[in-house]
């Protein structure tokens, strides 16, 4: 009888010991290997186009990423468009949704250009630019650093003399890439398609 009790006691003590050891290990890990911030937010943020345009209704890409990480909709980013929605859906393992038209439509990449003759040097656009891509100082002409402009539109609204244009980027031979071969017709269709 006592043997049985002893073995039960040993089992309980062994389990207790294991629980304590693993508890200590987990506690140690929780303190020493703590991940700062939410890694999911970082992952989502890296998929967003970083225009910082605020079209999604959040002040910048990161707040939008945080909202997605908290289960918010993934279809509010017009600059990213369908490809961003697809990438987000793949990351979060959910169904991709069509772009929410309420926040705007996907359009070709554009950059802001200041009509420099008309600029009065008010610095309002400089304050609006989320990526510091506008150069200039008070009462002096401003100009947009084209390579840094994300095309977010935010500088257009504050300009008191409406001298900022959003210009479509000209296709450049150095950015050209091969396109996928067109899905072919089948051999028996060939004659018909040619005529």
């Amino acid at each position, binding site marked *: 009888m006592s043997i049985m009790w002893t073995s039960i006691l040993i089992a309980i003590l062994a389990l207790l010991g294991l629980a304590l050891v693993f508890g200590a290990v987990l506690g140690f890990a929780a303190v020493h290997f703590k991940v700062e911030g939410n890694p999911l937010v970082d992952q989502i*943020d*890296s998929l*967003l*186009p*970083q*225009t*910082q345009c605020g079209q999604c209704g959040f002040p*910048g*890409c990161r707040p939008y990423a945080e909202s997605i990480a908290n289960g918010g909709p993934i279809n509010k980013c017009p600059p990213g468009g369908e490809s961003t929605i697809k990438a987000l859906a793949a990351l979060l393992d959910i169904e991709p949704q069509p772009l929410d038209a309420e926040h705007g439509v996907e359009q070709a990449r554009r950059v802001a250009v200041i009509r420099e003759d008309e600029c009065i040097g008010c610095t309002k656009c*400089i304050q609006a*630019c*989320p*990526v*510091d*891509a*506008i*150069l*200039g*100082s008070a009462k002096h002409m401003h100009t947009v650093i084209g390579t*840094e402009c*994300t095309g977010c539109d935010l500088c257009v609204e504050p300009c008191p003399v409406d001298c900022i244009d959003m210009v479509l980027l000209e*296709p450049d*031979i*150095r*950015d*050209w*890439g*091969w*396109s*996928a*071969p067109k*899905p*072919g*017709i*089948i*051999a028996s*269709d*060939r004659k018909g398609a040619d005529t």
Partner: protein
Amino acid sequence: MTQIWDFPGGIYPPENKLLSTACPIRNAGIPELLILPLQQHIGAPAETIVAAGDRVLKGQKLADAASGKGVPVHAPTSGIIDGIVQLPVPHPSGMSDWCIVLKPDFHDEWMPLQPASNYRELEPELVLELIHEAGISGMGGAGFPTTIKLKQPDGRSIHTLILNGAECEPYITADDMTMRERADSVIAGLQVMTWLLRPERCLIGIEDNKPEAIAAMRAAITNTQIELVVMPTKYPSGGEKQIIQILTGKEVPSGGIPADIGVMCQNIGTAVAVSQAIFEGKPLISRVITITGDTVQEPGNFDTLLGTPVEYMLNRAGVSMNEVHRLVLGGPMMGYTLHTAKVPLIKTSNCIIAASSRELPDPPPEQPCIRCSLCADVCPMELLPQQLLWHAKASEFEKAEHLNLFDCIECGACSYVCPSSIPLVQYYRYAKDEIRSRKAEQRKADRARERFEARQNRLLREQEEKELRRKERAQAAAEVQAKKEADAQSAGTEGHPIDERAAKAALVAQALARKKAKANKVVPPAHGTDNT
């Protein structure tokens, strides 16, 4: 006999080289208009240093290298600059780019030339500079600036220099004819390069289907330490990685360059250009181009001024334009169809094929892959073409990259053997460009994020500094107030009425002291006024 190795895969397409080797290299003459694109190679475009209306001499520099990865452009003949405009350039996209248009005056008047035949007495840097100033970029493949290639890569020495005379692609005979007729010039240029690089071995690889070229080159290398290696004819033995494998038995590591294993390849045309630059002082203004195909009445090789329109060359060789079904720039395997014959010939153009519909018919429609694995058998890079096709079609670019898509040399052997006529190479090019453009976009987004975060931090810092200054001011004001009250109190208790003037003078003195203290204190420079 030098030992040779073999590379995996490869194909034996009909050579069709006899068409254009029947007659010697002819001079193409001067066309009515020369079109000189500012970018004729990979790297950066050159910057013009002439203006419309200027008269220029033959060999005069028209555009200078803007950055380290460019080479200058020179006037191929004397004449008047007609303008600097956007015109169609030889590019698979058919798009336009900036070109200098030169109207020849047919005097063909050279600028004063400064040969450097005594180059062995000069500093190597100076010789490299001469090659750079002559506007020489690789004349075989992508056209990498030759000077950058010849500069000893830091820490890596070149032990084997290979002159690539394989010319494995069907139809093209420009290098073959150059070696037959200008072997001495080729060897002279090669010797300049060996002097610069000081390799242990210098090899010339030539395919065994060019006996005349082999004989001419063999005669030219007598009394030198250069070795001539005859290799079996197999496409694509002229690929840089392939010829290195054939001649040295070594493989260039994935994603690496030949210099990583101490090997360098140079092109026949480049060697001639180097020899002309050093021994005659002439910049790169012309090259040998093969004009061939069924519709050409007098096919052959032409010494052509750079910038000569394709149209002019077709006329020169007697092409009946209405019979031309397809116009290909480059070889039939790796070249591309030209959208218009108005494009000029550039430093990297080596062949024009004006083909009839029988010769190069439209590709038959693509059919499903039947997994016959012929493509994998012929791939010289030992890739998995079917798998790459699968991933490219499904836009699974990461997986394609994982299967070493970027090691594909786009030789076209897989497309050539495919029984389902799948344009495999076009799928790979598409996938590569898609991956590149996505990476570029990602870089741009990362940069935008960095700038955004830097701005947020700056705004926060400014806010804090403002707050701090406000607090300091409030504190100072409170102190003054307290002192005033204390003064008033002490004055009151002592019972000496202070006259108003004295009180005011004291206040002014206090203000001055404050100002002095403030001026002595180092004020942190205010950020934010400049938005750089």
